[in-house]
């Protein structure tokens, strides 16, 4: 029972490394092994979160039996537990969603096995990034996430390899900056464990190295989460990734480093440090520029994936805005936005992949009257887009509401203005999509999955279920939002970040 923190990572790990071997013997079973282990991991993560909420104590797991500063430990508290459930959930459903894209081909045994292995490693890396309590271990998990990202983007569409190469160069600079930050912290304190660092950083009186370490962390995490001036790799990478893995990449992969940044800035560096205010202001400026840049640039493009990619830059700006506010409502808004935007963006990329699978649609002007041929996908697109704009009762409204409350609490009314302006701008490009969807003229498109053959009007069942679940979760997160914030987030955010 107490081995759950490591079992969540071990099950998918065994699935991922044995997938090539199993596929050699029987191609379909390799795929099923990965999907099965990811669902098992999701079940375990729910059990773990239930345990944490019940006892109210964080869970510690010592690897190798060595006590913390000498060994590595996993620390799972309330906020962590929720993010692990989120990553496992989306990972399991994305692996289910990708099965029609990667039909097991007996002539080319390795193709689907390699894809599933890399996707599973992406999920493992993200799970590990959220659970670990050791600064250097976080670097290793970050590199696993990055390498699997490079792989999944490179096997994508036409400009995939070059988008992956540019992401590789930028991502390596980010990881090296993070490593340099860890090096500075190690030279000042002599330890690598996060809880230990928090204690020791209060005792040293050398403030310059803390400022330098904070700057390195901002650059390192900023590159990984595509914060404003460091976002250059993101639009091509998210537009040209493999369509079935894109939901995972665009929805979850850029959020977990934002959680890592929260962990570093609120649990390790103390907020009362004199340089902290300047640092938070810098993050705030980057966030505001990112929000406005993302929303404005998304108006220019007609390619569906590119619009969604630029809109992600803006949404990550919201999370960074929550971090820079630093007070209770700001952090609750940031964590809630991680949850709700993960479902919204993942759902939108599911619909984009479904459109590509059935009709080969890449541009929004080919979307005319598609809701007649794909009713479920069309409804989900409408629901998710309304949530992205920020209309109640969908989930997108509530996270922006908490961020606005946090800004008012701090007296920074400029941020409230930015929030309103960006919501209006996203309304413009999403309503343009609606206009083409409902009132565009119908294009003659080649149907790759015809209804007559398969007895179903839409895409296969394995693809429809994740789309529907994403849309339903967005509605549920919106309606059940007070329950989540009052019973779970308030206590955990207060205790973990501000306690």
């Amino acid at each position: 029972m107490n081995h759950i923190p490591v079992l969540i990572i071990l099950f998918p790990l065994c699935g991922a490394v044995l997938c090539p071997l199993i596929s050699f013997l029987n191609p379909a079973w390799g795929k099923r092994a990965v999907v099965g282990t990811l669902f098992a991991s999701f079940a375990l993560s729910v059990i773990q979160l239930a345990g944490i909420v019940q006892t109210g104590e964080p869970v510690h797991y010592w690897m190798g039996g060595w006590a913390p500063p000498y060994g590595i430990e996993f620390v799972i508290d309330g906020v962590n537990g929720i993010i692990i459930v989120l990553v496992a959930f989306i990972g399991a459903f994305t692996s289910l969603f990708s099965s029609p894209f990667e039909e097991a081909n007996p002539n080319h045994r390795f193709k689907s096995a390699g894809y599933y292995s890399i996707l599973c490693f992406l999920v493992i890396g993200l799970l590990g990034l959220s659970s670990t309590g050791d600064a250097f271990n976080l670097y290793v998990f970050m590199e696993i996430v990055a390498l699997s990202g490079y792989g999944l983007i490179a096997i994508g569409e036409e400009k995939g390899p070059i988008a992956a190469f540019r992401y590789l160069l930028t991502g390596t600079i980010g990881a090296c900056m993070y490593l340099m930050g860890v090096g500075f912290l190690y030279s000042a304190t002599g330890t690598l464990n996060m809880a230990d660092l928090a204690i020791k950083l209060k005792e040293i009186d050398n403030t310059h190295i803390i400022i330098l370490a904070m700057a390195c962390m901002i650059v390192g995490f900023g590159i990984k989460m595509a914060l404003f001036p460091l976002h250059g790799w993101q639009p091509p990478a998210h537009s040209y990734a493999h369509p079935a893995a894109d939901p995972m990449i665009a929805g979850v992969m850029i959020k977990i480093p934002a959680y890592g940044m929260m962990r570093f800035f609120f649990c390790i560096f103390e907020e009362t440090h004199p340089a902290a205010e300047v640092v938070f202001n810098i993050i705030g400026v980057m966030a505001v520029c990112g929000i406005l840049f993302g929303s404005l640039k998304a108006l220019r493009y007609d390619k569906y994936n590119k619009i969604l990619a630029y809109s992600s830059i803006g949404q990550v700006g919201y999370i960074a805005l929550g971090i820079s506010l630093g007070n209770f409502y700001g952090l609750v808004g940031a964590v809630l936005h991680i949850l709700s935007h993960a479902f919204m963006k993942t759902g939108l990329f599911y619909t984009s992949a479904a459109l590509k699978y059935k009709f080969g649609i890449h541009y929004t002007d080919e979307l005319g009257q598609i809701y007649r041929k794909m009713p479920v996908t069309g409804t989900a697109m409408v629901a998710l887009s309304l949530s992205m704009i920020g209309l109640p009762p969908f989930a997108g409204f509530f996270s922006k509401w908490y961020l606005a409350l946090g800004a008012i609490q701090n007296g920074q009314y400029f941020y409230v203005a930015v929030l309103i302006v960006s919501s209006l701008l996203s309304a413009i490009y999403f309503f343009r999509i609606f206009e083409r969807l409902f009132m565009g003229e119908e294009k003659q498109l080649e149907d790759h999955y015809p209804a007559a053959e398969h007895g179903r009007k839409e895409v296969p069942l394995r693809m429809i279920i994740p789309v529907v679940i994403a849309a339903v979760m967005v509605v549920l997160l919106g309606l059940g939002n007070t329950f989540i914030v009052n019973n779970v987030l308030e206590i955990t955010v207060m205790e973990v970040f501000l306690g």
Partner: protein
Amino acid sequence: MDKVKITGVIVIIAGVILAGFILGDFLPTVGDATSSANSYLSPYYIEHALHDTEAPNLVTAVLADYRGFDTLFETCVMFLAGVTALMVLLSKRKIVKGQRNPSDTNGISFSGTVLDTAFRVLIPVILIYAFYVLAHGEISLGGGFQAGALLAIAYMIDRLIPSFQNRLGFFTEETAAMTAGVGVFIYIFTGILPMFNGGNFLEYGKLPFEFAVEAAVMLHPVGIFLIELGVTVCVMATIINILEVVLERTKFDD
């Protein structure tokens, strides 16, 4: 303005700021044995490693025992790099089971009298040295990564020098990826075994091999050897994987 000039100016400004910081005494003196970096965790490792893990090589003790979890994911990074290189450069030809592909037989070979004789002597020596480095990883310098690289070198010499039909080792790209997966699985399995015996993941003191050793602390070298074996297999298979993937698309003109 020119991209080179802008970047140059930014880098020089950053460098000057950093130099100012360094002059301001914030990094420890090089070689200071009492700096904070050297005086919290490392005296513990130096003084207790032999007692806790029976491994005189302190770097192996830290890498494979105290921080063995990091090493597991480092091995996974190697496996991932091999699989990713394979997926990116996946060839379009159909691989029919059992049939040798015609392009393989125009093999690349560098044979000549000297090389033909030399490689027959070199390969056994390298193999013996690789197993020595693997087995002595915890006593003197060595370890799993180095042994894996040496085994891959032995395979590389065998692959490049004789012609395709006369070579001794037979790995294809997919077989190499599978072997790398098996290597990582050996590592994970060594970590899972203590969990059945009441210990945590990778806790070598609770491995169920008590019948084979005299004291519980001697289980640690057994555990370290098993994980280094897994690391060796994975590293060797990944290097062979990348070699085969690259060789398939290379044309030699001479």
